[in-house]
């Protein structure tokens, strides 16, 4: 297959994934609107089992079939979400073949690879935790990211500029992307936690939407665990970046805007982890810190490239 064919196929596959995910989003929305709400008690019961796979199965076994089974709309959504993820994965792979290198050399590739990882991490995590209620939000975030990639960030497949030609690109950017995928999921969990927690405080948990969310404690725990996975990976990404900077630019840390913001993100996530152990800061405040941390991460990925000129300004926007 020639590079041109691969590049063309990649574009088609990414577009296709976007359309398939749009269908998934519509199906999840329909599920929310027309599907039957899950009974609260059962939802809680399943949630208790989160963390131990065998327990979840046990809980599912205990529960009557209709509570575990989901509406047909949800089934369509889930199927298309998985399909879209596979198609996007193929698109990312083709992009790599077209450019003859790892597909994370510029922001477009970063966005599509990142979306694929978020989707993959979500699908993997939902085998372990009951995260079905996240589906619509995760799909929304994914669709937004890929949409942005295709419309604003797109640049044709091309070899890397010399500055990026290093094994550290593979290591540094891969780690940053994986960590960002985890942080994205934790952002979704933290947002839903705030919604659910507010509802619980007001005693209004019977609503069509809120009643389907896992209870606040579970959401809080999921947000924490996913962040706990992402944080060491992010730390590693920053360190790998510093090692690369030493090779490429002759200093391991130079307060380039990208470096500065990666440290800011690191500090705010560190604050989140500390806040969770501090009385008076657990729960809502910690969740808000986590959202702030995610905002700094987003700014680092998109804002810094667009707003500032630094050493990381290459490979197009």
């Amino acid at each position: 297959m020639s590079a041109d064919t691969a590049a063309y196929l990649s574009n088609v596959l990414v577009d296709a994934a976007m359309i398939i995910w749009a269908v998934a989003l519509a199906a999840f929305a329909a599920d929310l609107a027309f599907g039957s709400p899950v009974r609260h008690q059962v939802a809680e019961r399943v949630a208790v089992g989160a963390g131990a796979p065998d327990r979840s199965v046990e809980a599912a076994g205990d529960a009557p079939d209709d509570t575990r089974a989901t509406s047909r709309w949800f089934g369509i959504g889930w199927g298309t979400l998985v399909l879209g993820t596979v198609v996007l994965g193929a698109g990312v792979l083709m992009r790599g073949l077209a450019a003859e290198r790892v597909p994370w050399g510029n922001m477009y590739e970063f966005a599509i690879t990142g979306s694929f990882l978020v989707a993959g991490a979500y699908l993997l995590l939902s085998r372990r935790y009951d995260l079905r209620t996240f589906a619509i939000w995760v799909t929304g975030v994914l669709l937004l990211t890929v949409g942005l990639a295709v419309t604003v960030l797109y640049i044709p497949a091309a070899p890397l500029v010399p500055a990026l030609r290093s094994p550290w690109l593979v290591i540094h950017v891969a780690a940053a992307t994986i960590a960002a995928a985890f942080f994205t999921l934790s952002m979704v969990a933290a947002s839903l936690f705030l919604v659910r927690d507010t509802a619980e405080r007001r005693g209004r948990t019977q609503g069509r939407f809120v009643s389907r969310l896992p209870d606040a404690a579970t959401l809080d725990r999921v947000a924490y665990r996913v962040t706990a996975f992402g944080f060491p990976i992010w730390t590693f990404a920053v360190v790998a970046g510093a090692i690369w900077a030493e090779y490429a630019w002759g200093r391991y840390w130079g307060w380039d805007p990208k470096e500065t913001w990666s440290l800011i993100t690191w500090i705010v996530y560190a604050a989140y982890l500390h806040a969770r152990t501090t009385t008076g800061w657990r729960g809502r405040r910690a969740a808000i810190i986590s959202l702030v941390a995610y905002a700094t991460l987003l700014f680092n990925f998109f804002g810094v490239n667009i707003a500032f000129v630094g050493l990381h300004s290459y490979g197009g926007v």
Partner: protein
Amino acid sequence: MTDTLTRQDAPTPPPASMSPVELGRWVWRQLTSMRVALFLLFLLAVAAVPGSIVPQREANPLAAADWAERNPGLATWAERLGLFDLYSTPWFSAIYLLLMISLVGCIIPRMGTHWRALRAAPPAPPSRLTRMPAHREQATPATPEQALDAAERVLRARRFRVHRVPDTRARPGESAGTALAAERGYLKETGNLLFHLSLVLILVAVALGSLYGYRGSVLVVEGDGFANSPIQYDGLTAGARFDAGDLPPFALTVDEFVMEFEPEGPAMGSPSDFEATVTLEPTPGAPLEQRVVRVNNPLSVDGTLVHLLNPGYAPQVTVRDDQGEVLLSQPVPFLPQDQSFTSTGVVKIPRGDDPDIGIQGIFLPTGVIGPEGPQSVFPGLGNPVLVITAWQGDLGLDDGVTQSVYRIDTEGMTQLTDGDEPFRAALGVGDSVDLPDGLGSVTLDGVSTWVNLQVSRNAGKEVALAGATLAILGLMPTLFVRRRRIWVRVRNGSSVSHGTPSDTSAANRDTVLAIAGLDRVASGDSGDLDEEVAAVAAAVEKEMT
């Protein structure tokens, strides 16, 4: 910084009147409290932001000067606050130093506590195990001693540290006198302490770097070389303890510097390879070595790194006077202005008593003279064109003021004209042009390349790497290990006083085994405690049959 087990969490207002010692204690308690640590973390994050908006002098002096020129009002304030060198300002340093003090103040006592905990037995079971988050009771036909033995084997297999302790807190008649106190997950705190200490190590490394490190840059035209000494650098930033005598005394010549660009495709014109072939003399008199330096592939000489920074073209220009006498003949480095390497530069020719000549040039590697003037369409040397204009007058070279070698101050000079139009000529390689008024001629003999080499030593980088590696190693157990206590109490029980025994039907079951678990949760992340206690209970049952 620390978990709730040790940090002072409740905000205590300062007592109304305090002796200096009391005040000191109060300040220390506040500083090492988690709240203040959190506050300092946020402060550090916020304080780092302006440095990403205002260009930093050390990283990019040109951009900083440019920013100051474009924002004169803001620049005054930025200057006052030290925003151009934000990360070395006293106030920024104060934040991270306070944070480090807070961290150390928290870590040191915890190290002692942890050291003692590692050597001591976990505390004896509390009087009421039923109040623990997870609790089980079961009867067994074994003797209390056998039951304890079995439980000990099970817990050890599950990697608990198990101690037999006198069951001092049990209520009368509820214990056989000895109980098991088991704990697992000490690695969590070990990792946590290691992580925080590693951060201190990284800070030490950064301090070493800023004391002993240096970074110089030098522009070398292809064919030229330089010896490693501060006099040869165009710019040098060095730490307070830097000594020019520490510089490794190498010398190198750039034999060839090649720039290649993508010739076609969507990325046409973007750099595909920059490669310098250099001859290195590692120490004076040592055998010469030929080396290749690339972007991402620096030359390393005795702990000093030589990097390729930005490259450019240097048109080889010869200027003759009206007699054909050569006034100047050399490659002149031009500064690239855009992606296509459209470059600008000047040639300055002092002529003693006669008025100086200044030539301003635009160099186009692949030149096209279009309707909008001369422009370069490709950064490679497709059709090199040098477009020149010329000035006559005083270049100001004798004023003793350092001036740019890339710019001419045309104030006090007059532009040479060709009739009514300003004089202008476009030279291909090998072309010559006569300057107006019989001032001589300019020839473009060829085109060389130049490259900016950065010579640097980052003192303490190995320490920083060690710190970073240890930090990541420490993070893993901190986040993923769960610290958990399990207590096992046995009693001779024909009756079960409280709790529901799982099995009382069998005959001869006259020992009751109570198992309770407690997570020392710092993060509010309670997990599978119930499952583990149940699993331990089941395993003990199995062990005894």
